[in-house]
């Protein structure tokens, strides 16, 4: 009977997730056998190799369907995010070793936390049950709280971690309360049951179901840093070690949006009229506020932190169309945004003068960079143009696809607000290009440049992908469309 139970759970469908945990355990063992005080390079290599195996197992072992009695669902949507999230994590790990030596973190837990975060994120993307979403979010968040605070001797790191933790705990409370209310109304936390319930009620929901939906929405808005629930993000982003900032602004955001999509498209699809209206306002606020804040930053790191809020706003525009094209646009954008944003952050790391100094990321350090380090400046220009959405980069296609989804679904006003925001954002992205290419070199602001081979390799890979998907986006679009198809 017990064997029957095990086989009904279809544990093998979660092979990649299990492998991630195995990798984490292996990494712990490697850390134990490595003499104390030595570099964490062995742990890094173990983790990366392990994650490559995870990607291979995702791509080559096809075993789709529900597992754990319908608590999770393995479909093309899950596979898409498994691959994307693992790839982003690998990139971050690949550049981390030199960086954490530099900022004196030097503990293997850095990699372990990344692996556990990855496990949590993967769980989020496949969750078919609100409780599993909750589990995934918590696994991810707890690892991230630790990662943000990892520069222990730096005040802003501690501050960011604490703020992130406190606000994250609030979010958790919102989320659990929302789940409880929905459970009270529906009698189940499985999103398929919720769908059936909403099909019966239509828009005439009892107040507790509305309240539950709203609380879940707010929780996701917190996790994806949407205005007005974004307050934690600039401080956490600034405080975190910069590799972690790059990570947080891409992978966990993608995972949170994945869960957001699945829960709302599948579970709450019947009441989409309600939440799309709320998201309309959130999208407008998020794009605009993020932009206005980013305009005023002199620190590249903070500028990128605020601008990542704006990009979340564009993603919400795609999401609220509640349409295959909108969903596909989101998936496409999450991928290319991952590459362009990580690329930009890595260049920022290369140029940072002093990690312990809050002015280590001053834009003035970029003066005349094009004539000092032409390659780095050129790569940074690609990322800036991509983030600004200028062809022929992938950033243009991503934005184009999002706004085309909005126009198709009749949200023309929103598309206009979106493109105008996009025009505003050109100003601050261009400012970096101006500083690199149009300003003269200034000896006073020229610090050391931290440009190691691993870093160079990762940045070039990101730049090549950003250009490639800008010129030949077709394949990725097809994959994104097929993946979102699983939710219908």
């Amino acid at each position, binding site marked *: 009977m017990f064997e029957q139970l095990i086989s009904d759970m279809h544990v093998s469908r979660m092979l990649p997730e299990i492998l991630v945990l195995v990798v984490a355990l292996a990494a712990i063992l490697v850390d134990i056998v490595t003499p104390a005080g030595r570099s964490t390079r062995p742990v890094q290599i173990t983790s990366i190799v392990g994650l490559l195996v995870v990607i291979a197992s995702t791509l080559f072992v096809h075993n789709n369907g529900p597992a754990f009695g319908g608590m999770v669902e393995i479909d093309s949507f899950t596979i898409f995010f498994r691959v994307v999230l693992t790839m982003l994590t690998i990139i971050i790990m690949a550049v981390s070793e030199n960086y954490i030596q530099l900022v004196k973190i030097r503990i293997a837990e850095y990699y372990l936390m990344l692996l556990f975060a990855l496990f949590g994120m993967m769980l989020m993307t496949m969750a078919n049950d609100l409780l599993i979403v909750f589990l995934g979010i918590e696994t991810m968040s707890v690892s991230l709280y630790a990662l943000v605070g990892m520069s222990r001797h730096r005040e802003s790191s501690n501050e960011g971690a604490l703020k992130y933790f406190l606000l994250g705990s609030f979010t958790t409370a919102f989320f659990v309360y929302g789940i409880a209310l929905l459970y009270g109304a529906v009698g189940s936390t499985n999103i398929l049951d919720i769908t059936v319930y909403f099909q019966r009620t239509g828009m005439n929901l009892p107040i507790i179901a509305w309240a539950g939906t709203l609380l879940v929405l707010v929780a996701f808005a917190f996790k994806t840093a949407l205005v007005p629930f974004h307050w934690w993000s600039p401080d956490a982003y600034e405080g975190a070690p910069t590799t972690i900032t790059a990570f947080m602004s891409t992978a966990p955001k993608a995972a949170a949006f994945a869960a957001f999509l699945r829960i709302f498209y599948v579970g709450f699809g019947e009441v989409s009229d309600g939440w799309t209206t709320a998201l309309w306002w959130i999208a407008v606020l998020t794009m605009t506020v993020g932009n206005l804040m980013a305009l005023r930053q002199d620190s590249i790191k903070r500028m990128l932190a605020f601008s990542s809020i704006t990009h979340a706003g564009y993603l919400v525009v795609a999401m609220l169309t509640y349409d295959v094209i909108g969903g596909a646009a989101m998936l496409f954008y999450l991928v290319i945004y991952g590459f362009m944003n990580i690329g930009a952050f890595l260049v920022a790391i290369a140029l940072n003068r002093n990690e312990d100094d809050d002015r280590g990321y001053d834009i003035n350090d970029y003066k005349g960079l094009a*004539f000092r380090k032409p390659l780095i400046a050129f790569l940074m220009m690609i990322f800036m*143009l991509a983030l600004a959405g*200028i*062809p*022929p980069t992938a950033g*243009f296609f991503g934005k*184009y*696809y999002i*706004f*085309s989804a909005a*126009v*198709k679904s009749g949200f*023309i006003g929103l*598309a*206009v607000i979106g*493109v*105008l925001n*996009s*025009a505003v954002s*050109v*100003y601050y992205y*261009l400012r970096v290009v*101006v500083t690199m*290419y*149009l*300003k003269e070199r200034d000896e006073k602001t020229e610090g050391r440049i931290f440009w190691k081979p691993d870093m160079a390799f990762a940045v070039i890979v990101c730049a090549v992908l950003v250009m490639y998907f800008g010129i030949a*986006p*077709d394949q990725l*679009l*097809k994959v994104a*469309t097929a993946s979102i198809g699983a939710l219908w």
Partner: protein
Amino acid sequence: MSIWLSSIVFIPTLGALLFLLLPARSAKTLRNAALVVMLIDFVVSLPLFWMFDPSTSKFQFVEQAPWVPSLGINYHLGLDGISLLLVLLTTFLGPIVVLGSSAVTKHLKGYFISMLLLQTGMLGTFLSLDLFLFYIFWEVMLIPMYFLIGIWGGVERIYAAVKFFIYTMVGSLLMLVGILWIYFNTTVPGIGHTFDYTQILRYADFGAQAQLWLFAAFALAFAIKVPMFPFHTWLPDAHVQAPTAGSVILAGVLLKMGTYGYIRFAMPMFPHGVETFKPLMLTLAVIGIIYGAMVSIVQTDMKKLVAYSSVSHLGFVMLGLFALNQQAVTGALIQMVSHGLSTGALFLLVGVVYDRRHTRLIADYGGIATVMPKYAAVFMIVMLSSVGLPGLNGFVGEFLILLGTYKTAPVFAILAATGVILAAVYLLWMFRRVFYGELVHEENKGLKDLKGIEWASLLPILVFIFWIGIYPSTFLNKVTVSITHFIGQVAH
């Protein structure tokens, strides 16, 4: 399928890639290489003029291939009489701007790479028959131009470059929303939604209300580029700060992208929009003509004077386009080419003395006709062509525009005619102050007359200034059928 048009568009890009291999140190190699690439491009494009069949309004030398099939985006190029002249103008000015760059010495490699990429962007804009492709070229061309102004420009170059970029960007993004709307509201039987220009003209059926909005979105993007009053404020900044070659491209070709946008896209696709906005557009055009001329009169800086005169001259083009009859539109097209030649030459000429004296203020000159007689003679010819003297190119366009406009909108024609008089005032007055009178400034006594390279860049333009002025039929014959077709589309 031939790849003729693609070669014309992408030869400069290939050249730019080759530039990456060249050593940055040798200025001479870089200059010669850029010149050779531009010349090859011109030579490749030249036979278009003879091979083009002027008896049909259909697009010729068409190339079509799927690019992003899942979004219905095609790579689609084609040429009609209207784009023919503009493409040739662009490739013709290519080698000339390279020759006009002799004063540039800083980061020469990047300079020519920008210039070559810009050439690709402009040619692509004139040849695209897919709205999406058009938009890509339209945007891509912004980046090299931004660098040309921003790196190699004058003191206020950063301000000017950013202003240029943001202005254009705001306009074009709204156009992008319009393009998207068109896409989702055009259905080709058996194919689905499309960005294809020819298919949109055939199958699209936008309501009158929608056309108003679409026309407004497109017209704004193009009006900023033209630039029409009151969207012209970026132009003087950009012109004054840009290096000489940048100004020549800007005046010669870039501004034409705006007027071309009207004639190719905004007007044929949205005839109802044209009907409603026509009075407004005509009014703005006339205001532009007179305002641009008046502001030119008071300028103390020669380059700024020429820049404002562009606002006035392009006002004529817009007037001709919206007067909407055969003569006026033909005039507008000829005026587009003429303005490219004359104003381009004027910028080159201002650059000649600027390189010698590093000032463009009219007050710093005076009486230099005695030390630079050849220069004065060339300047006079170009200046008179810009004024619109019969026998030179400027006259043909302005005359046809005024004649055509008088038929449909006499009041506007009369008002616009004052612009011709004002042009004579500001140009002749400037000419007198710069070239005649006493040679008061000591520094000017040693000025050298035109050099070989300067002749090389100016002479070809002079040939066409006379050719168009004396025998415009060579060019008019190529465009007649296309223009008749255009008027049919807009006025049905």
